[in-house]
């Protein structure tokens, strides 16, 4: 397409992930990132790819989060997600429009899809980035990601191949505010693949019970091995409730079965960025920190003054959590009762 005399417009693409007419918030986070990248990449524009079935109504929201153009691929073969039709549809679009950068959420689906697209179009893909920037020298994407269990950060460049692809985990990037702009350019993209061409059929979905979506909680009270057992989490639950937040956990306590895996925060759990993170009885291993160091403020409670968690906490209380947490519940409740009476 862009092999005329005119220099190509650098397009920054974001894949919009939707499930049952709900857009995954990571897509908005990526649009926010795309806009920041566009500011550093002269002449570039932010565009979105929206594959699915009966999803046109979502386009309006996509525009509000800053996409100037939306490519809508709306076909029944895309109704339940399957790798092949999605990968083929999106790859064809990539080959047609040759975007400069392509961002995808590192969700289960995003990871399934991104590797397949990158291989189809023969380009590089950097997974699970925590930071995206435009390298000022080469005007290319500098995608930074943790490796070796979060012990090392590596900035990955894709010099000659396009698009430069990256996936980013939910909540690693801040949630942008929607803009007040009107609708942009909606491009309907035809896609001809019929159900018979898809080798994988979805027989059924066994729904998990609604797991707590801790990723988007504003307040998290997290407990680690120092909590001592499942009973300790009852205490944390009480504090979380008083603060209008949710309970989080380190891996060993999940492994020990003190609390459900859905609560695990860290490298192999969830990434969170609450306004307030209270870490009680958590030592602060690097694998835990990578999941929560984006929090607004961090309060650590630990009996060991040398616990590494204090190195990243905005405030540390050195003491026994079984003294501190009940007192905190008492003071918070006292305050909220007083407020309630006032109102």
């Amino acid at each position, binding site marked *: 397409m862009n092999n005329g005399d005119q220099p190509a417009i650098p397009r920054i693409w974001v894949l919009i992930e939707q499930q049952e007419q709900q857009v995954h918030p990571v897509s908005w986070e990526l649009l926010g990132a795309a806009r920041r990248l566009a500011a550093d990449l002269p002449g570039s524009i932010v565009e979105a790819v929206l594959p699915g079935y009966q999803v046109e109504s979502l386009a309006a929201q996509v525009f509000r989060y800053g996409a100037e153009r939306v490519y809508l691929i709306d076909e029944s073969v895309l109704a339940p997600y399957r790798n*092949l039709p999605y990968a083929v549809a999106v790859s064809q679009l990539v080959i047609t429009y040759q975007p400069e950068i392509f961002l995808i959420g590192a969700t289960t689906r995003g990871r399934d899809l991104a*590797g397949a697209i990158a291989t189809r179009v023969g380009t590089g893909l950097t997974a699970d980035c925590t930071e995206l920037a435009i390298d000022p020298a080469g005007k290319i994407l500098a995608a930074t990601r943790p490796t070796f269990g979060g012990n090392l*950060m590596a900035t990955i*460049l894709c010099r000659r191949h396009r698009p430069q692809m990256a996936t980013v985990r939910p909540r690693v990037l801040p949630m942008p505010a929607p803009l007040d702009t009107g609708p942009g350019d909606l491009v309907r993209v035809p896609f001809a693949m019929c159900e018979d061409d898809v080798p*994988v059929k979805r027989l059924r979905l066994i729904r998990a019970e609604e797991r707590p979506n801790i990723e988007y909680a504003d307040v998290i009270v997290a407990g680690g091995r120092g909590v001592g057992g499942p009973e300790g989490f009852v205490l944390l639950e009480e504090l979380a409730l008083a603060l209008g937040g949710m309970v989080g956990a380190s891996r060993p306590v999940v492994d020990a079965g003190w609390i459900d895996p859905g609560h695990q925060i860290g490298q192999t759990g969830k990434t969170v960025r609450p306004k307030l993170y209270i870490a009680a009885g958590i030592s602060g291993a690097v694998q835990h920190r990578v999941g929560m160091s984006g929090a607004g403020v*961090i309060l650590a409670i630990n009996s060991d003054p040398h616990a590494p968690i204090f190195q990243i906490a905005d405030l540390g209380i050195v003491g026994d959590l079984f003294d501190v947490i009940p007192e905190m519940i008492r*003071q918070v409740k006292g305050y909220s009762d007083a407020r309630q009476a006032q*109102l």
Partner: protein
Amino acid sequence: MHAIVAIKQVPDTSNVRIDPETGTLIREGVPAIINPYDIHAVEAAVQLKEQFGGRVTVITMGPPKAAEALIECIEQGADRAILLTDRKFGGADTLATSYVLAHAIEALNAEWPADIILFGKQAIDGDTAQVGPGVAVRLQIPLITYAIAIESFDPVARTAVVHRRIEQGVEVLQTRLPVLLTVEKEIAPVRRAPLPRMITAARYQPEVWTAETPVAFDPRQIGLKGSPTVVGKAYTPAPRAGGAIVTVADCGVEAAVARALEVMGILDTVRSSVAASAGVEVA
């Protein structure tokens, strides 16, 4: 039935240390292990073999030392192991890795077409989860990632039903064979290898394949040359700076908590949540 499993030897990341001065990884002394998901993939393949007969072939691309990981697969019940090792393969990113593995699998398919190809869900040294999907694309076979169970498998009718974990729950998918799965640990609990297998494995020598023999790989698609991505720089993450410390032993628990609530603005949080539940806007 022929199952092919791709496995990787990785440094045990729970043991990785960083040189504080250079910010680089100290690999020396870090034990190398088989990628934890991959051994479950081997186990799943071995269980299929026990049910349907046939063969399990494991392959890896890596340094000569990676033979150790292959031997471990033989212990777990694999029949044949292939080590793709050559300096020319070095420096591969996921695109180049998926090319090499796919090309090797094609060669194996020519001898005995695989009914199922298994990968781990991700390698713990890079956590990319890209190589499996990449190989499925190259082989043009169906892909099911994050598989947690094989409900049924029919090498004659050439179909299988596979459970896959997604955010909303578990998807039950029917697929044509051959299929490529990337697996979670639940796919099959790893059994302790029996002593006779240990003995077989101790004497086993993996087949070594280079970039030229017995299969020729396209030199432009392997190693550094075949890799679109490069590492620009690597560094240790800058720690978030720590703040003040209050010690309960010094000031008492009541004062410590009061201080924390104040400094952290926790009461503001409470204020807004109380207000919200009372339906009041907070300025």
